[in-house]
């Protein structure tokens, strides 16, 4: 048996709106903290280069993350067993969400 940290990320399926992610993108990241009302320039709604990072952020999705401590034979079976639990108990709602499960060995 080995100990793993299994990370379960639950997010809305593609096509389902994520108003929180959209707001973070539109009103914080793309504005870079500028207040539109102070007249220091309106931001455009499209993605554009972010001055602070130099990268181009075009989408932000929020998600719920569950981090589990799991004892299992190997990473593969840890992921498989956690997926079974997620499916059986609806830890995510398959109607609206997808789930991404990864396992990392935990340092002793």
């Amino acid at each position, binding site marked *: 048996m080995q100990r793993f940290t299994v990370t379960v990320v639950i997010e809305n399926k593609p096509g389902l709106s994520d108003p929180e992610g959209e707001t973070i993108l539109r009103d914080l990241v793309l504005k870079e903290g500028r207040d539109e009302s102070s007249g220091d320039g309106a931001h455009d709604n499209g993605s554009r280069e972010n001055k602070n990072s130099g990268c181009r952020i075009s989408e932000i999705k929020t998600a719920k993350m569950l981090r589990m401590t799991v004892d299992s034979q190997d990473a593969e079976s840890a992921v498989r067993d956690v997926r079974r639990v997620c499916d059986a108990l*609806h830890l995510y709602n398959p109607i609206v969400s997808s789930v991404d499960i990864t396992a990392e060995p935990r340092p002793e």
Partner: protein
Amino acid sequence: MKVGIVVFPGSNCDRDMHHVLRDVFGFDVQYVWHTKPVPAGTDAVVLPGGFSYGDRLRAGAIAAHSPVMSDVRRLASEGTPVLGVCNGFQVLTESGILPGALLVNESLGFMCQWTDLVVENASTPFTSMMHAGQRVPIPIANGEGRYYADEDTARDLQRSGRVVFRYADGRVNGSVDGIAGICNDGGNVVGMMPHPERAAEYETNPVDCGPARMIFESLASCMPAQQVSHAGYAGAAGRGIEEKEEEARSQ
């Protein structure tokens, strides 16, 4: 008529529902703790509003696995009238008894406001005294009230007449097709986000409690053998609300 009100840890509209069902409409009402079975002889089940398990994971997600839900599922399939209000609706979708899901409102905020519903299906046990197109002034109070169903499911709900209520303002919270309430295939299970128990009395409804009352009057009327002490309500159309209230108080 015996009505069971299921109580989960975190339910908080169970007493309002109990008051309205018993004191206003004269039903024989019993609380059903979520780890207990639904008592034999229960004629209708109500899943009240609130925050079962503090809305942890998702609203209704944990309560959907409560022991009582296997009884609710069985009764639902046998045709027993089941009403889920707000968190009760969320529990019904999370348990798969009703299709779709309830997501965080588009505003991301908890919405607590009066709204108008429009009746779409007037043939369920909870709407049989209403008529299609009727407006119902009623409050909503939820954070996760945005009804979602995929395109096929939404089309199927529409085609099969399973949309029971829509918001008159279809964009109030981002619900698909403005859906506020739906029913199952049999029509006996209805889930709705707004709170009829907060709208069925003259004292608590500043607009008009008549329409919301009909949700409970419909339930009373759908059981021929039901014994409600205020059965007169069903035949009291045309009389003033105050007069009806007076009658309720005097009994």
